[in-house]
């Protein structure tokens, strides 16, 4: 069983990097060292009236334990986190979930790293650690791009915007087609319609496709069964068709889940 750590992390820096999107670097003791791309942390509010942790994906890590999260303010909890600055502390638990399977990557394979909106952050660390030729395809609402320069350090980046104000007008699949891109494996994180389209695309092309899902969570460690997704096979935990996004996921092979 992978180690999980409860820590009081210290904020190194935080900055707004886009439309309600924040980038925070946290100094951790163990979480940063243990984390793999595609894993997440539970972040706890200081306000005791907010009982549930916010699951936030890990954007990148540094070998000495720093962890970067990039998140969108979606409510009062994330709003509270966005007000923190250098030297403030934050209760976190992690690393949680399985992460993207790096070890399956054979040399010489071409990959797609696909992120949509607030699903883009985990692609930063994945791009750093994945060997081979990486084509990073990212979809935004508009030209207010974020993390593009970070991604460009480790692969060729292709951008789509919903309103056509930058790169391909449309979604990440439009961008793949417009640039005549091809790959052997897909790694993706983003909104469900995007993941659904990628699952269909991967099936049509006959390629392996790893999808990182999002679901409302409570415990974050596999006990409460709030965050399930529908699985093809009977799951090991409950003997039904419900895999836990926080435990067996958040990353699943597209063919093992229904979307």
């Amino acid at each position, binding site marked *: 069983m992978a180690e999980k750590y409860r820590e009081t992390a210290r904020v190194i820096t935080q900055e707004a990097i886009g439309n309600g999107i924040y980038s925070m670097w946290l100094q951790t003791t163990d979480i940063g060292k243990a984390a793999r791309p595609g894993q997440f942390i539970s972040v706890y509010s200081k306000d005791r009236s907010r009982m549930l942790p916010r699951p936030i994906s890990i954007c990148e890590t540094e070998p000495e334990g720093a962890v970067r999260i990039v998140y969108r303010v979606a409510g009062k909890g994330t709003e509270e986190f966005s007000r923190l600055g250098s030297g403030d502390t934050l209760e976190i638990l992690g690393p949680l979930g399985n992460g993207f399977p790096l070890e399956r990557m054979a040399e010489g394979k071409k990959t797609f790293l696909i992120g949509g909106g607030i699903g883009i952050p985990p692609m930063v660390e994945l791009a750093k650690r994945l060997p081979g030729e990486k084509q990073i395809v990212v979809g935004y609402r508009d030209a207010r791009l974020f993390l593009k320069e970070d991604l460009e350090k480790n692969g060729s980046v292709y951008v789509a915007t919903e309103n056509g104000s930058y790169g391909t007008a449309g979604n990440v699949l439009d961008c793949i087609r417009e640039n005549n891109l091809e790959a052997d494996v897909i790694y993706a994180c983003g909104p469900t319609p995007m993941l659904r389209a990628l699952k269909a695309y991967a099936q049509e092309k006959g390629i392996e496709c790893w999808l990182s899902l999002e679901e409302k969570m409570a415990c974050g460690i596999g006990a409460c069964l709030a965050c399930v*997704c529908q699985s093809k096979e009977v799951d090991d935990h409950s003997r039904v068709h*419900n895999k836990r996004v926080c435990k067996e996921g958040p990353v699943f092979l597209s063919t093992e889940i229904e979307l």
Partner: protein
Amino acid sequence: MSINMSVKIAGVELKNPVMTASGTFGSGMEYSEFVDLNRLGAVVTKGVANVPWAGNPTPRIAETCGGMMNAIGLQNPGIDTFVKRDLPFLQKYDTKVIVNVCGKSTEDYCEVVERLAEESVDLLEINISCPNVKEGGIAFGQNPRAVEAITAEIRKHAKQPVIMKLSPNVTDITETARAAEAGGADALSLINTLTGMKIDVHRRTFALANKTGGLSGPAIRPVAVRMVYQTAQAVKLPIIGMGGITCAEDALEFILAGASAVSVGTANFRNPETTLEVIDGIAEYMRKYQIKDIRELIGSVK
């Protein structure tokens, strides 16, 4: 000062009065990374039925001010897997095992209870907030006659003492408490969650796929303490109190109101070590006020 924190529930002695609330702690496996289960008075498992239940569609949870709502739908692996996998895990620990049982019909409950008769389980807790499919889906726990009938039927099949877990979604909790007592219950636990609803105004839809869900957490604590107090006045059975306990002071409210033991539920999500903090905090309180035996506190506020 040496203090005694052990309490007895239906003849079963717990080393302290603190246990986990069903559904918030699985079968202890996931939380054992954070909590030494040996320290707990008991582990109350997530509800188990006669067959696996898939539960409800997602979203299954939503946060509310001072609490949360859930409509998990009692997803569980069924009694076979539970007996093969979860019970052997719990038996490795020096804590009491309380198995929470759910069902869609009286027969479902009895089947589970019978399967557990020969297992090393200390107590059974019966979740009667499930809809009775044979009676048009009304929860067993909302009708005193149904509570008495199902309690009596389960009692006939059960080897271990039976704790009936009462629903707070009733006009008068003492009616269902008395009904459970009349049916032969050995103990009561209360409260289960309060039925609620949350609407996402931005998406203009229900926050939960199930539309309604069970409200839990500190927001419901005063309601729970009141119901424990009323029930303690109405019946002679030992009571396990729960509803929004996050610290020792919260737990002590229940104990002073008449609970012999307490369960920590939603707070586990915010802090996995809450149960341990509650145990330590109660001990500290007893030392501070020179209370030698926790039994002096139970129901002492009248």
